[in-house]
Each structure stands twice: as C-alpha cells, then as structure tokens.
C-alpha cells in the first residue's frame, strides 16, 4: 500500500522531514503499525516516535488512534499535542 506521511512542528524539526510518500510492506495495516515501522529507521525516528512520547496522529485530516486501519493513498500525520488559540 502507498500512503502519504506528514510531520508537523517539533516532530517535523526533529525528523528533518515535512512530508514523504512511502510504499508500505503488506504487514503494515494500521496507523500504529506505521509509527512502529518508522521507528525501525532508528536514530531520530526511534526517539521522536517512541512509545510514551506525547504524540498525536491523524489519518485523512482526522485525529485518530493507533488502531485505525490504513486505506490506499491515505494521509497519515504525526505531530505533538496542539497549542493553538
């Protein structure tokens, strides 16, 4: 499956990437799977996306949990808790 990744604010800066199109292995089926899969890149990825870090995830522009299933071409975003207003 091919999906689009987006990173914002401190997560974007830590990873040095704002967006990226990726081809996922068949075993990656949820938003949480994507997080673990990216963590396996090591270095800043392992640290920034570590379990226990305050991180929010969105799928197709909606805040979502780790169990949300991916769909072809979906946009998955990782970012810190929001601080607007």
């Amino acid at each position, binding site marked *: 499956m091919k999906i689009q990744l987006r990173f*914002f*604010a401190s997560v974007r*800066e830590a990873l040095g990437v704002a967006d990226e199109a990726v081809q996922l292995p068949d075993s990656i089926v949820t938003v949480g799977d994507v997080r673990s899969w990216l963590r396996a890149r090591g270095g800043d990825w392992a640290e920034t996306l570590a379990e226990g870090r305050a991180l929010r995830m969105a799928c197709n522009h*909606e805040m979502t949990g780790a169990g949300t299933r991916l769909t072809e071409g979906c946009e998955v975003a990782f970012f810190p808790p929001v601080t*607007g207003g």
Partner: protein
Amino acid sequence: MTVKVQTEDFDLSTEAGALRRAHPEAGALACFVGVVRDLNQGVAVSAMELEHYPGMTEKSLDAIIEQARARWPIADALVIHRYGKLAPTDQIVLVAVATAHRGDAFAACEFIMDYLKTAAPFWKKETTADGAHWVDARDTDARALEKWKSPGEQTSNK
C-alpha cells in the same frame, strides 16, 4: 458558519458588525479574542510563530462548530485563526457566536475555544532570550474539556 485560517490580522468591529447585521433575530453576540502575551510561564516572549496543518485545520474547526450547533441554537458562528509570524499584543484568534439570548452565546463561544485548544492542529513556537522553542501543551487545556462532557464521559486521570 465561517472558518478562516489566515496570516492577515482581523478587525473585531468589522467581523462583529457583519454577523450582527446578517442576523437580526440574534440578540446576543459573544466574541472572544486570543492575544499573544509578552510573558509565558515567567519568561519574556519577543515573537511567536504559529504553524498549522492546512486542510485538517479547517476540517477540525468546522467539526467543532458543528458540535456546538448540536448543543446550542446558534444563529451564526465565526472562527478566524491566524498563523505565521506574530508579536506580543497581536491578535491570534477570534471566536464569535450569535444566538437569540446571551447564555447560549457565552456557552457556545467558550465551548468552541476549549475544543479548539485541544483539537485544532496549530502549534506555537515562541522566541525568548534563549532562542526559539515549541510551546508545550498544557494539562489545563485538556481539563477544560471535562466540563462539557456528560457525567458518563468524564475521566478522572486526564
């Protein structure tokens, strides 16, 4: 119902006047303006930059207004949120709600702001004497949502 995400400043009187004149049935218009402070947690702030997630931002603000409409009889609502570079005393956000009577206007305006603080994808980066750093989310913002939940939805540990 209008949502605007923009770098430009806004004029409260112009926006409030337009809402007022478009809704003669609304006897109450509650407006909230969020402003950049020059001090955050005791540290002097010289500048602020706001980042957002284009697409998701508008969608989340629309959804928050829809939730408010489901709870209160809202004649009209307007949210303007700025992004980009801002300075202390600059306006960040405007929430304006027009209703028939004041109770609903106050409540809906506060509800929209409380949800915006925890659900709309904006991030603040402050510049202080030590350099620029991302602002941490505050527990008080998450707790502010509790008052809008029904007793069954409330959590004691968040």
